[in-house]
C-alpha cells in the first residue's frame, strides 16, 4: 500500500493525478479461505480490516454481491454518537466512537470524522425526564453528555424556532458526536484490509451455504463454491434472507429508512440537531447540503426506496422547527433497508450452524457503530466465541428475555 501523505499528493500532482495506484485489488476468489465475511459494507470491511490488523488473520475474503459500500453504508445520514441509555450499548457505541476519533490516522485515509457536537432536543416534560435519565446514565458510565437550556440551544442553532408547535424546552448535548464521510469509511477499510492481504470480491452474491453435520463448510456463490471453516454474515437488511439460506430465522424485520439532502447552502447549522418527539434530524454536509432523516417506513420492505407520505412526515416538522428552510429545494432522497430488532439493539451472535456467525440488527443506527462493530466482531471470529462486549447481544436474549431495550430511549438520530 502506498501511503497517502502531503508528499504523495505533490508527487502525483506533478503527473496530473493520472498515476495514483488503485486503492484495492479486484482478485478472483480462491477456492478456500480461513474466514469468509459476507457483506462488503462498512461493518464487513471493518471486520476484515481488524481481523488482519489485530489478529493476524489475513487469509480472508469479503464477498459483496454488488459494489462495496453500496448498501446502507452509502445510504445513511452519517451521524456518529454514543449517547445510549443501556450500559451494554453505551460500552459498545462508545468503543466505536473512540475508534472513530483516530480512524483517519489509523487507516491513513481521511474519513472526515467531524465531532461537531450533537444536540438532542426536548419538547415536553416527558422528553425532559427522558434526557435527564439518559444524560445521568451516560455521565455515570463516564461518557460525555451535558444538559443545555433553551437559550443555549438558540445560541447554538440560531435558525431554530424555539416556540414551534411543540416548544423546545432544553436539550442534551454530546460534544464528541458528529458526522463522518460515509463512502470514505468503506473505502478506507477496504484499502487497509486489502493491503494486509484480504481479498475483496465484488459482484459475488452468496446463493447458499454448504453444510456437513451442522457445520458450515463454505458458501455457494455466483462465482462458484468457496470453502471456509468460519463465516461471518454482515449483510444488514438482507440478514433474514441469508439466515433462511442457512435454515434458521432471526428476530428481525426489514424496513426502509429514508433520508434526503437539500440543495447546497452557505453554512447554516454547525452541529447535528435531532428530535425524538417530532422525529426528524438534520445536519449540514461539508458540501453545504442539509442532510435530513426521520423514522423508518412502517412496513416490511426490501425495496431500497420508501413511500412518499413518509417524506412529508419528516419535512413537515423540519420546516416547523426551522421556518427559514421552508423554501429550500430537496435534491435527492433515497432509502436503505434496515434490519430492525424488537429491542432496537444489534445482534452479534453464534447461530444454530456451527462456524457461522452473524452480526446484524443494527437497524436504523448502524453507521455510527461501524468501527466498533467490526472491531468486536473480528475478535469474535478470531476467537471462535463471543467476547464480553458482544456477549449481551447474542440472539439467545430473545429466548432468555434479557433484552437490551433501547427502543423507548434511543435518541432517534441514526
Amino acid at each position, binding site marked *: 500500500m502506498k501511503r497517502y501523505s502531503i508528499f504523495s499528493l505533490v508527487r502525483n500532482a506533478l503527473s496530473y493525478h493520472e498515476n495514483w495506484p488503485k486503492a484495492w485489488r479486484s482478485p478472483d476468489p480462491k477456492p478456500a479461505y480461513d474466514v469468509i465475511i459476507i457483506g462488503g459494507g462498512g461493518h464487513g470491511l471493518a471486520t476484515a480490516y481488524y481481523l488482519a490488523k489485530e489478529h493476524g488473520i489475513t487469509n480472508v475474503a469479503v464477498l459483496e454481491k454488488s459494489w462495496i459500500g453500496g448498501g446502507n453504508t452509502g445510504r445513511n445520514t452519517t451521524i456518529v454518537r454514543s449517547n445510549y441509555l443501556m450500559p451494554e450499548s453505551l460500552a459498545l457505541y462508545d468503543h466505536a466512537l473512540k475508534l472513530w476519533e483516530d480512524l483517519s490516522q489509523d487507516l491513513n485515509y481521511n474519513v472526515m470524522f467531524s465531532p461537531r457536537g450533537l444536540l438532542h432536543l426536548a419538547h415536553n416534560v416527558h422528553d425532559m425526564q427522558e434526557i435527564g435519565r439518559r444524560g445521568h446514565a451516560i455521565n455515570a458510565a463516564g461518557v460525555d453528555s451535558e444538559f443545555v437550556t433553551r437559550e443555549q440551544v438558540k445560541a447554538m442553532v440560531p435558525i431554530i424556532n424555539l416556540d414551534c408547535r411543540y416548544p423546545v424546552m432544553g436539550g442534551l448535548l454530546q460534544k464528541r458526536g458528529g458526522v463522518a464521510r460515509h463512502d470514505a469509511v468503506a473505502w478506507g477499510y477496504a484499502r487497509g484490509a486489502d493491503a494486509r492481504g484480504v481479498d475483496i470480491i465484488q459482484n459475488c452474491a452468496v446463493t447458499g451455504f454448504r453444510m456437513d453435520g451442522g457445520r458450515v463448510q463454505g458458501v455457494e456463490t455466483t462465482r462458484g463454491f468457496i470453502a471456509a471453516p468460519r463465516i461471518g454474515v454482515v449483510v444488514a437488511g438482507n440478514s433474514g434472507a441469508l439466515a433462511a439460506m442457512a435454515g434458521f430465522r432471526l428476530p428481525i424485520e426489514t424496513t426502509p429508512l429514508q433520508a434526503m439532502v437539500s440543495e447546497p447552502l452557505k453554512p447554516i447549522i454547525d452541529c447535528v440537531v435531532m428530535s425524538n418527539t417530532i422525529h426528524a434530524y438534520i445536519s449540514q454536509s461539508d458540501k453545504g447540503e442539509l442532510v435530513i432523516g426521520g423514522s423508518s417506513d412502517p412496513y416490511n420492505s426490501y425495496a431500497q426506496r420508501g413511500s412518499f*407520505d413518509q417524506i412529508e412526515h419528516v419535512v413537515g416538522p423540519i420546516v416547523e422547527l426551522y421556518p427559514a428552510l421552508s423554501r429550500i429545494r430537496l435534491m435527492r432522497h433515497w432509502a436503505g433497508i434496515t434490519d430492525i430488532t424488537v429491542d432496537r439493539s444489534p445482534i452479534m451472535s453464534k447461530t444454530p450452524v456451527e462456524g457461522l456467525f452473524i452480526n446484524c440488527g443494527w437497524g436504523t443506527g448502524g453507521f455510527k457503530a461501524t468501527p466498533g462493530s467490526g472491531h468486536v466482531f473480528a475478535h469474535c471470529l478470531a476467537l471462535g466465541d463471543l467476547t464480553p462486549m458482544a456477549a449481551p447481544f447474542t440472539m439467545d436474549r430473545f429466548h432468555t428475555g434479557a433484552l437490551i431495550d433501547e427502543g423507548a430511549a434511543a435518541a432517534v438520530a441514526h
Partner: protein
Amino acid sequence: MLPIRCPWCGEREQTEFSYGGEAHIVRPTDSADLTDAEWGDYVFFRTNPRGLHYERWFHAFGCRRWFNMARDTVSGAIHGTYRPGEPRTDVPDAPRVPVAGGDGGEG
C-alpha cells in the same frame, strides 16, 4: 404510495392504513407448557421474507377492521387482500426465497 383494496371498503390510499406485521401467526394455546425458546420464537422471530409476504393491515382511517394481504416485499406489488379466516391468496408464480422454519400456521 400504494393503493390498497380493503376487503371491507374497497380501494383506498395507503395512508389510511396501518401495518400489523406478519399474518397467520397463531398464539400457542399451551403457553404454560412451552419452553422459553418456543415462547421466544412465537413472540420475536419472524420469517421476514425477501419476496412474497403474508401480512396484517388495519384500516385505521376507515372501517377500523383488520384484514390480510399478500404483498411482495421487493416490488411492493399487492397480490391480493382477504378477510381474516378466509384462505390466503395463492400466488403460485411469485418470486420466493427459502423461508426457514415454515411460514407460520393458519389463523
